[in-house]
């Protein structure tokens, strides 16, 4: 009986830790899905821009001894700018019907960002400051990381603000109009490129927050994080439903819990196998994801 209770506690703790960490996946997934919803295209440079923003924030901390809040703010702002630049260089001048070209351009953007980071840092991992990193609450047999609670809270706040912007502001209305039917939106006087630029910038802002939060949660920043975050972001986006923000949130938390659970019961060798199997199941049985509209033939 003791063993059973012990396992229940451990599994509960494992799932809870996974949910908290999954909030970073949710933020990354929201960025991917926002851009896909607006343009029907995937921005593969997204996570790279997020990590790059975190590096600039870290540089501010190292050279100017800036407070942590400023580090996070700088990370978000730089990623916002990078989101804008990625749109201008990888999407704006590529014909809208040419999805592959935009995808490959953004892949090139990811590699470029990665190489610049390696060049600047010699590939060395760097300590990243975190808020509440020493906070650890123990409730009976359970332990709760204060910094992960903060990350979770920031994730919720970011999502609420994003939803407010999308559904309660003219900018949000314009974004949704372009996502629905860009020609009709243009006929209504909405500037497509300006709207898409702002969408990419907003996604970049979310990415910067996600990048800084992830680095703070791990405590270390390294260019090796760009590709795994990109993959997790894509998995979350697909499972949540391409273009669905609530889907990305739920999927991010779910994937975080799911991978942690299988790490606990099956070990490191099989963890990613189960996550990819989950993705495969969704692609086969529910390709539209948890919340997106049903995909039908044209």
């Amino acid at each position, binding site marked *: 009986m003791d063993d059973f209770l012990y396992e229940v506690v451990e599994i509960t703790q494992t799932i809870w830790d996974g949910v908290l960490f999954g909030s970073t996946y949710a933020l990354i997934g929201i960025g991917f899905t926002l851009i896909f919803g607006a343009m029907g295209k995937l921005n593969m440079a997204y996570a790279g821009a997020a990590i790059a923003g975190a590096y600039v924030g870290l540089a501010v901390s190292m050279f100017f001894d800036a407070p942590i809040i400023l580090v996070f703010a700088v990370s978000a702002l730089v990623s916002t700018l990078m989101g804008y630049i990625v749109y201008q260089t990888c999407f704006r001048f590529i014909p809208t019907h040419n999805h592959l070209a935009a995808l490959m351009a953004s892949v090139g953007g990811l590699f470029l960002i990665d190489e610049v980071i390696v060049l600047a840092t010699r*590939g*060395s*991992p760097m300590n990243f400051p975190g808020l509440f990193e020493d906070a650890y609450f123990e409730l009976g047999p359970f332990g709760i990381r204060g910094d992960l609670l903060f990350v979770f809270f920031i994730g919720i706040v970011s999502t609420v603000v994003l939803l407010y912007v999308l559904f309660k502001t003219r900018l949000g209305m314009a974004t949704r109009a372009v996502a629905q039917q860009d020609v009709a939106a243009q006929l209504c006087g909405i500037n497509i490129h300006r709207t898409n630029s702002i969408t990419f910038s907003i996604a970049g802002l979310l990415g910067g927050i996600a990048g800084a939060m992830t680095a703070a*949660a*791990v405590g270390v920043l390294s*260019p090796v994080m760009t590709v795994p975050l990109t993959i997790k972001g894509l998995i979350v986006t697909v499972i949540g439903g391409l273009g669905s923000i609530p889907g990305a949130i739920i999927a991010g938390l779910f994937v975080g819990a799911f991978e942690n659970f299988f790490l606990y019961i099956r070990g490191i060798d099989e963890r990613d196998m189960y996550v990819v199997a989950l993705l495969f199941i969704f692609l086969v049985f529910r390709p539209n994801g948890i919340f997106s509209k049903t995909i039908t033939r044209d």
Partner: protein
Amino acid sequence: MKNLSKLIGASLLLIALSIPQSAIYAGPTLKVLGWGAKSGPLKSFGVNSEAALRSAVAEINSAGGVRMGDGSMAPMEVIGYEDSACKKDEAIAILRKTASTTDAIVGMGTTCSGVCQAMFGVLQKKVEDTSDSGVQMPILADTCIRPGLAKISEWSFRNVPNEITMYDELFKWIRTAYPNVKTFTGGSETDQGHSFITYTAIIVQMAVKHGFEWVGPAVPELGPKVKQGMKELQAAAKSQHWLMGDTNYTVQARKIKKQNADMVLVASHPFSACGFMKEMKRQRVKPKLLVGLTSSASQETLNGCMSAAEGIIIPTGFAPITPEAKKANSIVSKAGGFLDLHSSAAWENAYLVKRAVERAAIMGRPDTLQQDRRNFRNALASISSQKGLIGPLTRDGSTGEADKPYVYVQVVNGKWKVIHDPNS
């Protein structure tokens, strides 16, 4: 008109001064080509090795260069440092290209142990075996540290410390230096050959050999002999291990915490070692002692987790404890790299190449290339001792391996400090 002439003259002078010496020098140059991981999770190792190699070559050239077979002095030239990305197929492709399309006398690098193993495997096994169509090019490795690789081929050589000896002596020393440490457990990244195999085949085995009690997942056949119970330990170990690029270590740290061991082994490269140690710190896991992987005795670990790594002890083949080591450390730092036990070997290898070339009387002409490579290989195999950065080292020509001095370093107040020199 006068001003224009002056401007043109000054420009020509600037251009002339910016041309590398080797481009002006009309005679043969001693060419070497390097490759290592310059992308991927271990990119810092390739970056550091390249910086060390190029710096050492610059020092050799500033002291006059290398004596060729005709008695002339020639500069050594690093004609390239390719990115093998810690991938076997990449490294093998670079090796084949280097052997067949360049006049490099030797290939230098490469980073990952699994890559070295595969790459050595395509070399000709025995020099005199004409039936073996393997690549005939000497390789001098500086980083791939997994035991026993150089004996794969007579063309393969390494300048790496012997981890079996290092950890054997380390745990023997810990026994006396830390008498209150009785039990141990640990974790490792499983997708990197060096760390995982070294952890299960060497580090754990040596700890058991010296009487420490393993309190990790049950491994009934675990014993003091290397490889005893290794498969069982590898299987058990995967339950609390991670991947090189992981960002979440909560599960593993909790398991380690539950085991409540006196000593925790963290056999992992800097990024994941730092991520794991930081998670241990968050979860209030406070063992009496931390022991790390040789490759993490580096500046990268301090950059990533100076505070969380406080107190970790690691055996290493490099520390700036001699005038030569301090000088090399300073030079390589200015060149954009860090010296550690791996990149310091790249520095030493440049001098080893110089010695072997001078012993072999290399001609350095295109028509003598293959004979030069063979002579170089023979000369390298004949070298039995060399002056290393922290002390003399010996070489075994029959295995292609080196026996290097080492020290134990510990993170003390955020810096690496040499706490014990077994050779003193």
